[in-house]
């Protein structure tokens, strides 16, 4: 009896959990097809105009612009998306490589200051965003570096390396060092051991770290705001700036496409993993 009650409670909690996680996403997907240009909560008919506009296909929403209600700034929005993707791709590549290398160095080698170093790595993660943002801004200004996309990439790397490091390091801790020793005993060079023994075992951790870095970089607002230069407004900064006028319908279309891309990437990751274990 008691366990049945327990199951019921667990089921309800689990269902609610998924509703709260996925209902907002569903709402965004549905409203991205809503023809109403100013009020996304009122269904005005089905349209693909927002997608067409974003993809630059044909005339976008002609009747809408006639109504003069709708603020045409799709180009700005697209520029913001482009900036966000550029930053996220670059930071993911850099922080994944550096974070993984750091985790390896700290796990497999003993050197002076190792403890301080590994502690220092976690600091950027724990620091409030606003402190890091202003700190980075003052730093860039002091060394005379012009703010641009590059400063955003550098800024993001400072804390994303810590995330990647943490995830890869957790994976490393669970590995059996005997495998590497065996590989060395059998005459493999350090590089071969890394490629053939270490890397395949670490791959899920590295992939997880890279995905996390990409996602955090994509949606960072506070730090990015401070270190963005002219013409380098990213998507979150852009959306936040629209607060007084309300959110544009294209935002839903962009969000839907990002959700779709995330599902595809996650599916690919899962598929790769399942293939590995077979």
């Amino acid at each position, binding site marked *: 009896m008691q366990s049945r009650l327990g199951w019921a409670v667990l089921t309800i909690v689990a269902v609610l959990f998924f509703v709260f996680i996925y209902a907002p996403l569903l709402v965004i997907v549905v409203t991205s097809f809503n023809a109403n240009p*100013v*009020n*996304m*909560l*009122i269904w005005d008919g089905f349209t693909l105009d927002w997608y067409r506009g974003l993809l630059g296909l044909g005339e976008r929403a002609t009747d809408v612009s006639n*109504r*003069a*209600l709708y*603020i*045409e*700034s799709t*180009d*700005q929005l697209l520029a913001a998306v482009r900036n966000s993707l550029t930053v996220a791709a670059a930071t993911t590549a850099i922080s994944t490589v550096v974070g993984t290398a750091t985790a390896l160095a700290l796990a497999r080698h003993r050197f002076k200051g190792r403890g301080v170093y590994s502690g220092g790595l976690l600091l950027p993660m724990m620091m409030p965003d606003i402190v890091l943002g*202003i700190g980075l*801004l*003052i730093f860039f*200004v*002091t060394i005379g570096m*012009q*703010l*641009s996309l590059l400063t955003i990439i550098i800024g993001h790397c400072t804390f994303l390396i810590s995330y990647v490091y943490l995830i890869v390091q957790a994976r490393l801790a669970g590995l059996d060092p005997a495998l590497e020793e065996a590989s060395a005993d059998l005459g493999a060079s350090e590089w071969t051991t890394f490629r053939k023994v270490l890397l395949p075992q670490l791959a899920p951790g590295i992939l997880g770290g890279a995905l996390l870095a990409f996602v955090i970089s994509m949606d960072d607002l506070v730090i990015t*705001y*401070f270190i*963005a*230069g*002219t*013409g*380098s*407004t990213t998507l979150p*900064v*852009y959306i*936040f*700036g*629209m*607060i*007084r*006028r*309300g959110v544009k319908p294209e935002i839903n279309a962009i969000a839907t496409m990002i959700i779709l891309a995330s599902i595809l990437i996650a599916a690919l990751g899962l598929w790769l993993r399942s293939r590995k274990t077979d």
Partner: protein
Amino acid sequence: MIARLAGLAFLASTTALAAQDAGTLALYNWGDYINPEVLQRFTEETGIEVTLDTYSSNEEMLAKIQAGATGYDIVFPSVHMQDIMLQLGLLERTGINESPSFANIDPAFLRSSQDPNGEYCLPYAWGTVGIYYNEDVTGPIAGWEDFFAIPERTGGKISLLDDMREVMAIGLIMTGASVNSADPAEIQAATDYILSHKEDVTAFTYESMALMSSGDLAAAHFFVGGNVFFTETPNIKYVIPAEGGTMYQENICVLASAPNKEAAMRFLEFYLQPEIAALNVAQQFNGTPNVPANELTPEFIQGNPNINVPPETMERLQIFEDLGAALRAYDRAWNTIRTVQ
């Protein structure tokens, strides 16, 4: 190697030339606060490429500029923020008031106490904050007293802005004080006024325009720019409260650190043209200090005395000033208003 170097040098010289030909201009503005067509026209006329970055509050912009962020040429601070920036030496003297077209600007909009003659900044745009109401539900509404009576009289829901200064301003206006009062007794009286009506207020929100058009709200406290949603719904009206309301004004200022001062100057001159100011109003639905521009705006805006405000209405509008130390008292009052049950 030499060929590659020569190629690089050539590339560098051509880009430098191109930049010299036309130049660039970096605007730093509130989100969605300028008609993209205005920028397009500027580029077509001058060949100067414009980049536009956005912020969502004066304080955010100040924090960034004050910390030394460079690259921006033009910012759009509110009047009280312009005063602060002038005192901090962040703005460049432009002498825009010596331009012949400066005569287009109504001198009443030279509001900055630090820049009373417009030697630094050009008045950009202004607007009011008032009441939107659904006349089918509420009947005619003249001001705050009618507004707060709506829930009891008709059962309709009302909302206020989620903004400390704007909400406190209602209390201060209704108790006969200045919206910039630093007197603790007046602040207390204003707080009490809002608290006495708090149970009638359904929400403190910026999202009220969507709720107005869906019929979920009977009336809402919002910026004049919200009229953009209601050009084809005659039952939803906007009114500047009879007891008094607030207004905002932003000015176009050139930063002392601007890399493209010449281009910035040309933008100020460009914006003095009545057609350009009117083009901006047509999309933004707010007021312009450019007098001849008011003749050129669309009929919906020109014919509506609550948007195209006559001088006698201007007299009951107040503008926010920097509060200084009194800000703390406002913060406390606002916390009480938002948290009290």
